Protein backbone atom coordinates (compact mmCIF):
# COMPACT_ATOMS: atom_id res chain seq x y z
CA UNK A 1 0.00 0.00 0.00
CA UNK A 2 2.68 2.49 1.07
CA UNK A 3 4.78 2.26 -2.12
CA UNK A 4 1.66 2.87 -4.26
CA UNK A 5 0.85 6.12 -2.44
CA UNK A 6 4.48 7.28 -2.52
CA UNK A 7 4.57 6.63 -6.26
CA UNK A 8 1.27 8.45 -6.89
CA UNK A 9 2.32 11.48 -4.80
CA UNK A 10 5.67 11.71 -6.60
CA UNK A 11 3.95 11.39 -10.00
CA UNK A 12 1.42 14.10 -9.11
CA UNK A 13 4.15 16.48 -7.94
CA UNK A 14 6.20 15.86 -11.08
CA UNK A 15 3.21 16.45 -13.34
CA UNK A 16 2.26 19.70 -11.55
CA UNK A 17 5.78 20.91 -12.19
CA UNK A 18 5.66 19.75 -15.81
CA UNK A 19 2.31 21.48 -16.28
CA UNK A 20 3.74 24.77 -15.00
CA UNK A 21 6.71 24.46 -17.33
CA UNK A 22 4.69 23.59 -20.46
CA UNK A 23 3.40 26.34 -22.70
CA UNK A 24 3.73 28.08 -26.04
CA UNK A 25 5.83 30.95 -24.68
CA UNK A 26 8.95 28.78 -24.37
CA UNK A 27 10.11 30.27 -21.08
CA UNK A 28 13.33 28.83 -19.69
CA UNK A 29 12.50 26.44 -16.81
CA UNK A 30 14.62 27.97 -14.05
CA UNK A 31 13.82 31.56 -15.03
CA UNK A 32 10.14 30.64 -15.12
CA UNK A 33 10.17 29.10 -11.64
CA UNK A 34 12.05 32.08 -10.27
CA UNK A 35 9.46 34.45 -11.76
CA UNK A 36 6.66 32.26 -10.43
CA UNK A 37 7.87 32.39 -6.83
CA UNK A 38 9.64 35.74 -6.60
CA UNK A 39 7.55 37.71 -9.11
CA UNK A 40 9.30 40.68 -10.65
CA UNK A 41 8.80 42.93 -13.64
CA UNK A 42 8.02 42.08 -17.20
CA UNK A 43 5.79 39.56 -18.90
CA UNK A 44 7.32 36.34 -17.53
CA UNK A 45 5.83 36.59 -14.00
CA UNK A 46 2.41 37.41 -15.52
CA UNK A 47 2.55 34.32 -17.71
CA UNK A 48 3.72 32.09 -14.87
CA UNK A 49 1.46 33.41 -12.08
CA UNK A 50 -1.69 34.36 -13.97
CA UNK A 51 -1.84 31.82 -16.80
CA UNK A 52 0.13 28.67 -16.01
CA UNK A 53 -0.27 28.42 -12.23
CA UNK A 54 -4.12 28.51 -12.31
CA UNK A 55 -4.09 25.88 -15.04
CA UNK A 56 -1.88 23.54 -13.01
CA UNK A 57 -3.91 24.05 -9.82
CA UNK A 58 -7.19 23.43 -11.63
CA UNK A 59 -5.78 20.32 -13.33
CA UNK A 60 -4.73 18.98 -9.95
CA UNK A 61 -7.98 19.83 -8.14
CA UNK A 62 -10.41 18.79 -10.87
CA UNK A 63 -8.56 15.56 -11.65
CA UNK A 64 -8.47 14.65 -7.96
CA UNK A 65 -12.14 15.58 -7.57
CA UNK A 66 -13.26 13.48 -10.52
CA UNK A 67 -11.18 10.48 -9.40
CA UNK A 68 -12.57 10.75 -5.86
CA UNK A 69 -16.22 11.08 -6.92
CA UNK A 70 -15.84 8.20 -9.37
CA UNK A 71 -14.51 5.92 -6.64
CA UNK A 72 -17.17 7.06 -4.14
CA UNK A 73 -20.08 6.60 -6.56
CA UNK A 74 -18.79 3.18 -7.60
CA UNK A 75 -18.46 2.20 -3.96
CA UNK A 76 -21.92 3.41 -3.05
CA UNK A 77 -23.75 2.02 -6.07
CA UNK A 78 -21.50 -1.06 -6.02
CA UNK A 79 -21.21 -0.74 -9.76
CA UNK A 80 -17.95 -0.07 -11.63
CA UNK A 81 -19.79 1.80 -14.41
CA UNK A 82 -20.80 4.72 -12.17
CA UNK A 83 -18.87 7.86 -13.11
CA UNK A 84 -19.96 11.53 -12.95
CA UNK A 85 -19.44 12.13 -16.68
CA UNK A 86 -21.16 8.97 -17.93
CA UNK A 87 -24.19 9.14 -15.67
CA UNK A 88 -25.01 12.73 -16.54
CA UNK A 89 -23.95 14.52 -13.34
CA UNK A 90 -21.32 16.58 -15.20
CA UNK A 91 -23.85 17.27 -17.95
CA UNK A 92 -26.40 18.60 -15.46
CA UNK A 93 -23.67 20.72 -13.84
CA UNK A 94 -22.80 22.14 -17.27
CA UNK A 95 -26.48 22.96 -17.84
CA UNK A 96 -26.59 24.84 -14.52
CA UNK A 97 -23.40 26.74 -15.43
CA UNK A 98 -24.66 27.62 -18.91
CA UNK A 99 -27.92 28.95 -17.50
CA UNK A 100 -26.01 31.07 -14.95
CA UNK A 101 -23.78 32.50 -17.68
CA UNK A 102 -26.51 33.17 -20.24
CA UNK A 103 -28.91 34.82 -17.81
CA UNK A 104 -26.13 37.18 -16.77
CA UNK A 105 -26.28 35.94 -13.16
CA UNK A 106 -22.59 35.05 -13.21
CA UNK A 107 -21.72 38.67 -14.04
CA UNK A 108 -23.76 40.23 -11.23
CA UNK A 109 -22.66 37.67 -8.64
CA UNK A 110 -19.57 35.59 -9.46
CA UNK A 111 -20.58 32.95 -6.90
CA UNK A 112 -23.75 32.25 -8.90
CA UNK A 113 -21.72 30.27 -11.45
CA UNK A 114 -20.43 27.51 -9.13
CA UNK A 115 -23.71 27.58 -7.18
CA UNK A 116 -25.84 27.03 -10.29
CA UNK A 117 -23.53 24.25 -11.49
CA UNK A 118 -23.62 22.69 -8.03
CA UNK A 119 -27.43 22.75 -8.07
CA UNK A 120 -27.43 21.12 -11.51
CA UNK A 121 -25.03 18.42 -10.34
CA UNK A 122 -27.11 17.78 -7.20
CA UNK A 123 -30.29 17.38 -9.27
CA UNK A 124 -28.41 15.03 -11.61
CA UNK A 125 -26.98 12.78 -8.91
CA UNK A 126 -30.22 12.87 -6.87
CA UNK A 127 -32.27 11.92 -9.93
CA UNK A 128 -29.86 9.10 -10.71
CA UNK A 129 -29.99 7.64 -7.21
CA UNK A 130 -33.79 7.85 -7.23
CA UNK A 131 -33.98 6.11 -10.61
CA UNK A 132 -31.31 3.46 -10.11
CA UNK A 133 -31.73 2.92 -6.37
CA UNK A 134 -28.99 1.70 -4.07
CA UNK A 135 -29.15 -1.79 -5.55
CA UNK A 136 -29.77 -0.76 -9.15
CA UNK A 137 -28.27 -3.09 -11.71
CA UNK A 138 -25.83 -1.91 -14.37
CA UNK A 139 -28.52 -1.64 -17.01
CA UNK A 140 -30.83 0.58 -14.95
CA UNK A 141 -27.91 2.75 -13.91
CA UNK A 142 -26.59 3.26 -17.44
CA UNK A 143 -30.05 3.81 -18.92
CA UNK A 144 -30.81 6.43 -16.28
CA UNK A 145 -27.42 8.02 -16.96
CA UNK A 146 -28.00 8.07 -20.73
CA UNK A 147 -31.39 9.74 -20.22
CA UNK A 148 -30.01 12.37 -17.83
CA UNK A 149 -27.00 13.04 -20.11
CA UNK A 150 -29.21 13.43 -23.18
CA UNK A 151 -31.55 15.79 -21.34
CA UNK A 152 -28.67 17.88 -20.01
CA UNK A 153 -26.94 17.99 -23.42
CA UNK A 154 -30.16 19.10 -25.11
CA UNK A 155 -30.66 21.77 -22.43
CA UNK A 156 -27.12 23.13 -22.90
CA UNK A 157 -27.54 23.21 -26.69
CA UNK A 158 -30.93 24.90 -26.44
CA UNK A 159 -29.77 27.62 -24.06
CA UNK A 160 -26.65 28.37 -26.13
CA UNK A 161 -28.62 28.47 -29.40
CA UNK A 162 -31.11 30.93 -27.91
CA UNK A 163 -28.30 33.30 -26.97
CA UNK A 164 -28.03 36.52 -29.01
CA UNK A 165 -24.25 36.15 -28.81
CA UNK A 166 -22.65 34.85 -32.02
CA UNK A 167 -19.98 32.88 -30.12
CA UNK A 168 -22.34 31.06 -27.77
CA UNK A 169 -23.27 28.22 -30.13
CA UNK A 170 -19.59 27.30 -30.67
CA UNK A 171 -19.19 26.79 -26.95
CA UNK A 172 -21.29 23.65 -26.94
CA UNK A 173 -18.04 21.78 -27.60
CA UNK A 174 -16.42 23.26 -24.52
CA UNK A 175 -19.30 22.27 -22.26
CA UNK A 176 -19.42 18.72 -23.64
CA UNK A 177 -15.67 18.10 -23.82
CA UNK A 178 -13.99 20.40 -21.30
CA UNK A 179 -10.78 22.39 -21.41
CA UNK A 180 -8.42 24.11 -18.99
CA UNK A 181 -7.06 26.64 -21.49
CA UNK A 182 -6.62 30.22 -20.23
CA UNK A 183 -8.42 29.77 -16.93
CA UNK A 184 -7.47 32.46 -14.42
CA UNK A 185 -6.80 32.61 -10.70
CA UNK A 186 -10.40 33.89 -10.29
CA UNK A 187 -11.64 30.50 -11.50
CA UNK A 188 -9.40 28.79 -8.94
CA UNK A 189 -10.88 30.96 -6.18
CA UNK A 190 -14.42 30.12 -7.31
CA UNK A 191 -14.00 26.38 -7.73
CA UNK A 192 -11.44 25.08 -5.27
CA UNK A 193 -13.06 26.00 -1.88
CA UNK A 194 -16.40 24.23 -2.56
CA UNK A 195 -14.50 21.30 -4.05
CA UNK A 196 -12.41 20.99 -0.88
CA UNK A 197 -15.60 21.00 1.22
CA UNK A 198 -17.08 18.31 -1.03
CA UNK A 199 -13.91 16.22 -0.71
CA UNK A 200 -14.16 16.37 3.09
CA UNK A 201 -17.81 15.23 2.93
CA UNK A 202 -16.97 12.34 0.60
CA UNK A 203 -14.01 11.41 2.80
CA UNK A 204 -16.33 11.00 5.82
CA UNK A 205 -18.26 8.29 3.94
CA UNK A 206 -15.27 5.95 3.63
CA UNK A 207 -16.10 3.73 6.65
CA UNK A 208 -19.73 3.52 5.56
CA UNK A 209 -18.66 2.53 2.05
CA UNK A 210 -16.35 -0.14 3.51
CA UNK A 211 -19.24 -1.57 5.53
CA UNK A 212 -21.49 -1.44 2.48
CA UNK A 213 -19.25 -3.86 0.59
CA UNK A 214 -20.59 -6.56 2.98
CA UNK A 215 -24.15 -5.81 1.94
CA UNK A 216 -26.79 -3.37 3.13
CA UNK A 217 -28.12 -5.35 6.09
CA UNK A 218 -24.59 -6.01 7.36
CA UNK A 219 -23.79 -2.31 7.00
CA UNK A 220 -27.00 -1.42 8.86
CA UNK A 221 -26.12 -3.76 11.71
CA UNK A 222 -22.69 -2.09 11.92
CA UNK A 223 -24.40 1.23 12.62
CA UNK A 224 -24.16 2.78 9.15
CA UNK A 225 -27.17 4.96 8.45
CA UNK A 226 -28.19 4.43 4.82
CA UNK A 227 -29.94 7.79 4.55
CA UNK A 228 -27.10 9.79 6.07
CA UNK A 229 -24.55 8.11 3.84
CA UNK A 230 -26.62 8.84 0.76
CA UNK A 231 -27.06 12.54 1.53
CA UNK A 232 -23.42 13.08 2.37
CA UNK A 233 -22.51 11.47 -0.95
CA UNK A 234 -25.02 13.46 -2.99
CA UNK A 235 -23.87 16.74 -1.40
CA UNK A 236 -20.19 15.81 -1.67
CA UNK A 237 -20.40 14.76 -5.32
CA UNK A 238 -22.40 17.90 -6.22
CA UNK A 239 -19.90 20.14 -4.39
CA UNK A 240 -17.03 18.60 -6.34
CA UNK A 241 -18.47 18.02 -9.81
CA UNK A 242 -20.52 21.25 -9.95
CA UNK A 243 -17.74 23.83 -9.53
CA UNK A 244 -15.28 21.64 -11.48
CA UNK A 245 -17.63 21.58 -14.47
CA UNK A 246 -18.45 25.29 -14.12
CA UNK A 247 -14.83 26.27 -14.77
CA UNK A 248 -13.56 23.44 -16.99
CA UNK A 249 -16.59 21.92 -18.74
CA UNK A 250 -17.66 18.29 -18.54
CA UNK A 251 -14.57 16.07 -18.61
CA UNK A 252 -15.63 12.44 -18.85
CA UNK A 253 -14.13 9.05 -18.05
CA UNK A 254 -11.54 10.18 -15.43
CA UNK A 255 -13.71 8.78 -12.62
CA UNK A 256 -14.20 5.55 -14.57
CA UNK A 257 -10.63 4.75 -15.59
CA UNK A 258 -8.78 5.68 -12.43
CA UNK A 259 -10.63 3.56 -9.83
CA UNK A 260 -10.67 0.67 -12.28
CA UNK A 261 -6.90 0.77 -12.75
CA UNK A 262 -6.13 1.24 -9.05
CA UNK A 263 -8.63 -1.24 -7.57
CA UNK A 264 -6.39 -4.33 -7.98
CA UNK A 265 -3.59 -2.58 -6.06
CA UNK A 266 -5.62 -1.55 -3.04
CA UNK A 267 -7.92 -4.54 -2.69
CA UNK A 268 -11.60 -3.78 -3.00
CA UNK A 269 -11.61 -1.45 0.04
CA UNK A 270 -13.27 1.91 -0.70
CA UNK A 271 -11.54 3.61 2.25
CA UNK A 272 -8.16 3.07 0.55
CA UNK A 273 -9.45 3.42 -2.98
CA UNK A 274 -10.81 6.93 -2.32
CA UNK A 275 -7.46 8.69 -1.66
CA UNK A 276 -5.68 6.54 -4.25
CA UNK A 277 -8.26 7.49 -6.88
CA UNK A 278 -8.00 11.18 -6.00
CA UNK A 279 -4.24 11.07 -6.62
CA UNK A 280 -4.68 8.91 -9.71
CA UNK A 281 -7.30 11.30 -11.11
CA UNK A 282 -4.93 14.24 -10.64
CA UNK A 283 -2.18 12.29 -12.43
CA UNK A 284 -4.46 11.41 -15.37
CA UNK A 285 -5.91 14.89 -15.85
CA UNK A 286 -2.59 16.71 -15.48
CA UNK A 287 -1.03 14.30 -17.98
CA UNK A 288 -3.93 14.78 -20.41
CA UNK A 289 -3.73 18.57 -20.04
CA UNK A 290 0.01 18.53 -20.77
CA UNK A 291 -0.65 16.27 -23.77
CA UNK A 292 -3.25 18.61 -25.34
CA UNK A 293 -0.68 21.40 -25.17
CA UNK A 294 2.00 19.27 -26.83
CA UNK A 295 -0.04 17.45 -29.50
CA UNK A 296 -1.92 20.36 -31.09
CA UNK A 297 -0.70 23.46 -29.25
CA UNK A 298 -2.42 25.97 -31.53
CA UNK A 299 -5.83 24.27 -31.71
CA UNK A 300 -7.04 24.10 -28.09
CA UNK A 301 -7.74 20.38 -28.34
CA UNK A 302 -10.41 19.61 -25.75
CA UNK A 303 -9.39 17.61 -22.68
CA UNK A 304 -12.46 15.38 -22.89
CA UNK A 305 -11.29 14.14 -26.30
CA UNK A 306 -8.16 12.63 -24.79
CA UNK A 307 -9.86 11.21 -21.69
CA UNK A 308 -12.55 9.66 -23.89
CA UNK A 309 -9.95 8.05 -26.17
CA UNK A 310 -8.47 6.38 -23.09
CA UNK A 311 -11.75 5.83 -21.27
CA UNK A 312 -14.28 4.72 -23.87
CA UNK A 313 -12.48 1.47 -24.84
CA UNK A 314 -12.31 0.58 -21.14
CA UNK A 315 -16.01 1.34 -20.83
CA UNK A 316 -16.73 -1.01 -23.76
CA UNK A 317 -14.56 -3.66 -22.13
CA UNK A 318 -16.56 -3.37 -18.89
CA UNK A 319 -19.84 -3.65 -20.79
CA UNK A 320 -18.47 -6.71 -22.57
CA UNK A 321 -17.66 -8.34 -19.24
CA UNK A 322 -21.12 -7.51 -17.88
CA UNK A 323 -22.73 -9.00 -20.98
CA UNK A 324 -20.86 -12.29 -20.75
CA UNK A 325 -22.53 -13.03 -17.44
CA UNK A 326 -21.30 -12.48 -13.88
CA UNK A 327 -20.99 -9.10 -12.23
CA UNK A 328 -17.98 -7.01 -13.04
Amino acid at each position, binding site marked *: MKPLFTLLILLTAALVLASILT*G*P*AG*IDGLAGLKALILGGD*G*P*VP*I*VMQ*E*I*RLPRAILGLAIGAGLGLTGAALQGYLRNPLAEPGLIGVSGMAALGAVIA*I*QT*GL*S*VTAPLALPLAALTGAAIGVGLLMALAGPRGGSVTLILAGVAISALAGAGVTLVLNL*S*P*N*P*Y*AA*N*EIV*FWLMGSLA*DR*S*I*LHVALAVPPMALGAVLVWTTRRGLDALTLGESAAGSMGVSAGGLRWRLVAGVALIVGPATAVAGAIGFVGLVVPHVLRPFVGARPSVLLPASALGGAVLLLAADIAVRLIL*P*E*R*DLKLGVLTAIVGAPLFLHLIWKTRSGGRV
Partner: protein
Amino acid sequence: MLLAAPGQLVSVTALAQNPEMSAMAEEALAYPANHARAEEIYLLRPDLVLAGEYSTGPTVAMLRRLGVRVEVLPPAESIPAIRDQITHIGTLLDREAEAADLLARFDTDLKAATEHRDRGRAALYYANSFTSGGDTLAGTIVTAAGFRNIADDYGIRFTSPLPLELLVMSRPDRLITGAKWPGQSRSEAILDHPALAMLSPEKSEVTDADWVCGTPAVLNAIRSLE
Protein backbone atom coordinates in the same frame (compact mmCIF):
# COMPACT_ATOMS: atom_id res chain seq x y z
CA MET B 1 -25.06 54.92 -49.98
CA LEU B 2 -22.02 57.17 -50.39
CA LEU B 3 -22.16 57.02 -54.17
CA ALA B 4 -25.72 56.34 -55.33
CA ALA B 5 -27.90 59.05 -56.86
CA PRO B 6 -31.13 59.84 -55.00
CA GLY B 7 -33.63 57.06 -55.72
CA GLN B 8 -30.97 54.80 -57.25
CA LEU B 9 -30.61 52.59 -54.16
CA VAL B 10 -33.85 50.72 -53.47
CA SER B 11 -32.92 48.48 -50.54
CA VAL B 12 -30.05 47.72 -48.15
CA THR B 13 -29.32 44.54 -46.22
CA ALA B 14 -30.59 44.47 -42.66
CA LEU B 15 -26.96 44.15 -41.53
CA ALA B 16 -26.37 47.72 -42.75
CA GLN B 17 -28.91 48.92 -40.20
CA ASN B 18 -27.21 47.16 -37.30
CA PRO B 19 -25.17 49.75 -35.39
CA GLU B 20 -22.85 47.00 -34.08
CA MET B 21 -21.66 46.20 -37.59
CA SER B 22 -22.42 49.13 -39.86
CA ALA B 23 -20.70 52.48 -39.93
CA MET B 24 -23.75 54.03 -41.62
CA ALA B 25 -26.51 52.35 -39.64
CA GLU B 26 -28.46 55.60 -39.14
CA GLU B 27 -28.40 56.55 -42.81
CA ALA B 28 -29.33 52.96 -43.71
CA LEU B 29 -32.55 53.20 -41.71
CA ALA B 30 -33.90 55.50 -44.44
CA TYR B 31 -33.98 52.57 -46.88
CA PRO B 32 -36.16 49.46 -46.84
CA ALA B 33 -34.16 46.51 -45.47
CA ASN B 34 -33.81 43.07 -47.05
CA HIS B 35 -32.53 39.86 -45.48
CA ALA B 36 -30.61 38.56 -48.49
CA ARG B 37 -33.29 36.10 -49.55
CA ALA B 38 -33.70 35.60 -53.29
CA GLU B 39 -37.47 35.96 -53.22
CA GLU B 40 -37.67 39.36 -51.55
CA ILE B 41 -34.82 40.77 -53.64
CA TYR B 42 -36.39 39.57 -56.89
CA LEU B 43 -39.70 41.18 -55.97
CA LEU B 44 -37.91 44.56 -55.69
CA ARG B 45 -37.09 44.18 -59.41
CA PRO B 46 -33.59 45.70 -59.19
CA ASP B 47 -31.42 46.27 -62.27
CA LEU B 48 -28.32 45.53 -60.25
CA VAL B 49 -27.64 43.65 -57.04
CA LEU B 50 -24.36 44.26 -55.19
CA ALA B 51 -23.53 41.16 -53.17
CA GLY B 52 -20.66 40.48 -50.80
CA GLU B 53 -18.47 37.42 -51.12
CA TYR B 54 -20.03 36.11 -47.91
CA SER B 55 -23.51 36.12 -49.46
CA THR B 56 -24.84 32.63 -49.85
CA GLY B 57 -23.95 31.10 -53.22
CA PRO B 58 -27.38 29.58 -53.93
CA THR B 59 -29.08 32.98 -53.46
CA VAL B 60 -26.76 34.64 -55.97
CA ALA B 61 -27.15 31.75 -58.44
CA MET B 62 -30.94 31.91 -58.11
CA LEU B 63 -31.05 35.66 -58.78
CA ARG B 64 -28.80 35.26 -61.82
CA ARG B 65 -31.04 32.49 -63.14
CA LEU B 66 -33.99 34.85 -62.78
CA GLY B 67 -32.20 37.35 -64.98
CA VAL B 68 -31.03 39.82 -62.32
CA ARG B 69 -27.56 41.24 -62.76
CA VAL B 70 -25.53 40.40 -59.65
CA GLU B 71 -22.06 41.83 -58.99
CA VAL B 72 -20.14 40.03 -56.27
CA LEU B 73 -17.65 42.30 -54.51
CA PRO B 74 -14.73 40.82 -52.57
CA PRO B 75 -14.19 42.33 -49.09
CA ALA B 76 -11.62 45.15 -49.27
CA GLU B 77 -8.86 44.24 -46.80
CA SER B 78 -6.31 46.95 -47.65
CA ILE B 79 -6.13 50.64 -48.56
CA PRO B 80 -5.54 49.99 -52.33
CA ALA B 81 -8.48 47.53 -52.29
CA ILE B 82 -10.75 50.18 -50.74
CA ARG B 83 -9.69 52.68 -53.44
CA ASP B 84 -10.33 50.14 -56.22
CA GLN B 85 -13.70 49.32 -54.71
CA ILE B 86 -14.80 52.98 -54.72
CA THR B 87 -13.89 53.32 -58.41
CA HIS B 88 -15.49 49.97 -59.27
CA ILE B 89 -18.83 50.77 -57.59
CA GLY B 90 -18.79 54.24 -59.18
CA THR B 91 -18.52 52.59 -62.61
CA LEU B 92 -21.27 50.07 -61.83
CA LEU B 93 -23.62 52.86 -60.76
CA ASP B 94 -22.69 55.25 -63.60
CA ARG B 95 -21.46 57.72 -61.01
CA GLU B 96 -17.79 57.99 -62.02
CA ALA B 97 -17.55 61.68 -61.18
CA GLU B 98 -18.89 61.20 -57.66
CA ALA B 99 -16.54 58.24 -57.17
CA ALA B 100 -13.52 60.30 -58.25
CA ASP B 101 -14.64 63.02 -55.86
CA LEU B 102 -15.02 60.59 -52.96
CA LEU B 103 -11.66 59.04 -53.77
CA ALA B 104 -9.94 62.43 -53.72
CA ARG B 105 -11.46 63.24 -50.32
CA PHE B 106 -10.49 59.77 -49.04
CA ASP B 107 -6.88 60.24 -50.14
CA THR B 108 -6.62 63.67 -48.49
CA ASP B 109 -8.14 62.45 -45.23
CA LEU B 110 -6.01 59.32 -45.28
CA LYS B 111 -2.86 61.39 -45.68
CA ALA B 112 -3.89 63.58 -42.76
CA ALA B 113 -4.79 60.58 -40.60
CA THR B 114 -1.62 58.62 -41.25
CA GLU B 115 1.08 61.26 -40.79
CA HIS B 116 2.56 59.66 -37.73
CA ARG B 117 5.88 58.69 -36.38
CA ASP B 118 6.29 55.13 -35.12
CA ARG B 119 3.92 54.87 -32.17
CA GLY B 120 4.98 51.57 -30.65
CA ARG B 121 3.59 48.08 -30.74
CA ALA B 122 -0.08 47.22 -30.80
CA ALA B 123 -1.96 43.97 -30.40
CA LEU B 124 -5.39 43.09 -31.73
CA TYR B 125 -7.22 40.57 -29.57
CA TYR B 126 -10.66 39.12 -30.08
CA ALA B 127 -12.90 36.49 -28.55
CA ASN B 128 -11.50 32.92 -28.58
CA SER B 129 -7.93 34.36 -28.55
CA PHE B 130 -7.91 35.46 -32.19
CA THR B 131 -5.62 38.16 -33.54
CA SER B 132 -5.34 39.79 -36.97
CA GLY B 133 -2.23 40.19 -39.11
CA GLY B 134 -1.19 42.58 -41.85
CA ASP B 135 -3.35 41.13 -44.65
CA THR B 136 -6.60 41.96 -42.87
CA LEU B 137 -8.54 45.19 -42.64
CA ALA B 138 -7.96 45.49 -38.88
CA GLY B 139 -4.23 44.94 -39.39
CA THR B 140 -4.25 47.59 -42.14
CA ILE B 141 -5.94 50.09 -39.81
CA VAL B 142 -3.42 49.42 -37.02
CA THR B 143 -0.45 49.83 -39.38
CA ALA B 144 -1.94 52.94 -41.01
CA ALA B 145 -2.29 54.50 -37.56
CA GLY B 146 1.46 54.16 -37.08
CA PHE B 147 1.66 51.04 -34.92
CA ARG B 148 3.67 47.87 -35.37
CA ASN B 149 1.34 44.88 -35.17
CA ILE B 150 2.63 42.16 -32.82
CA ALA B 151 1.01 39.54 -35.08
CA ASP B 152 3.94 40.12 -37.46
CA ASP B 153 6.34 38.78 -34.79
CA TYR B 154 4.59 35.43 -34.96
CA GLY B 155 4.22 35.35 -38.75
CA ILE B 156 0.45 35.82 -38.62
CA ARG B 157 -0.80 37.40 -41.86
CA PHE B 158 -4.52 36.73 -41.59
CA THR B 159 -6.81 36.20 -38.60
CA SER B 160 -5.81 33.25 -36.46
CA PRO B 161 -5.59 32.26 -32.78
CA LEU B 162 -2.70 33.52 -30.68
CA PRO B 163 -2.18 31.91 -27.25
CA LEU B 164 -2.64 34.38 -24.39
CA GLU B 165 0.88 33.54 -23.18
CA LEU B 166 2.44 34.73 -26.43
CA LEU B 167 0.38 37.92 -26.36
CA VAL B 168 1.64 38.69 -22.86
CA MET B 169 5.23 37.86 -23.81
CA SER B 170 5.18 40.31 -26.71
CA ARG B 171 4.34 43.24 -24.36
CA PRO B 172 2.28 45.45 -26.67
CA ASP B 173 2.03 49.19 -25.94
CA ARG B 174 -1.57 49.25 -27.12
CA LEU B 175 -4.22 46.61 -26.80
CA ILE B 176 -7.18 46.74 -29.16
CA THR B 177 -9.89 44.24 -28.30
CA GLY B 178 -12.95 43.10 -30.19
CA ALA B 179 -16.33 44.58 -29.37
CA LYS B 180 -18.55 42.57 -27.04
CA TRP B 181 -21.77 41.23 -28.46
CA PRO B 182 -25.03 41.25 -26.56
CA GLY B 183 -25.57 38.26 -24.31
CA GLN B 184 -22.84 36.37 -22.51
CA SER B 185 -20.31 33.93 -23.83
CA ARG B 186 -17.27 32.06 -22.60
CA SER B 187 -15.42 32.92 -25.81
CA GLU B 188 -15.41 36.60 -24.90
CA ALA B 189 -14.41 35.93 -21.29
CA ILE B 190 -10.78 35.73 -22.45
CA LEU B 191 -10.88 39.53 -22.85
CA ASP B 192 -11.50 39.87 -19.09
CA HIS B 193 -8.56 37.64 -18.13
CA PRO B 194 -6.58 39.26 -15.29
CA ALA B 195 -3.35 38.70 -17.21
CA LEU B 196 -4.54 41.19 -19.85
CA ALA B 197 -5.30 43.76 -17.15
CA MET B 198 -1.87 43.24 -15.57
CA LEU B 199 -0.19 43.74 -18.90
CA SER B 200 -1.42 47.34 -18.48
CA PRO B 201 -0.61 48.83 -21.84
CA GLU B 202 -0.94 52.60 -21.80
CA LYS B 203 -4.40 52.45 -23.32
CA SER B 204 -6.73 49.94 -24.79
CA GLU B 205 -9.43 50.31 -27.39
CA VAL B 206 -12.37 48.40 -28.67
CA THR B 207 -13.09 47.83 -32.33
CA ASP B 208 -16.50 48.98 -33.56
CA ALA B 209 -18.53 49.31 -36.75
CA ASP B 210 -15.83 51.41 -38.44
CA TRP B 211 -13.54 48.34 -38.38
CA VAL B 212 -15.88 45.87 -40.06
CA CYS B 213 -15.85 46.77 -43.75
CA GLY B 214 -13.38 48.30 -46.18
CA THR B 215 -15.10 51.65 -46.72
CA PRO B 216 -14.01 55.27 -46.18
CA ALA B 217 -15.21 54.77 -42.58
CA VAL B 218 -11.87 53.07 -41.78
CA LEU B 219 -10.52 56.63 -41.58
CA ASN B 220 -12.59 57.04 -38.42
CA ALA B 221 -11.06 53.85 -37.06
CA ILE B 222 -7.54 55.09 -37.84
CA ARG B 223 -8.27 58.43 -36.14
CA SER B 224 -9.82 56.68 -33.13
CA LEU B 225 -6.41 55.17 -32.31
CA GLU B 226 -5.04 58.54 -31.23
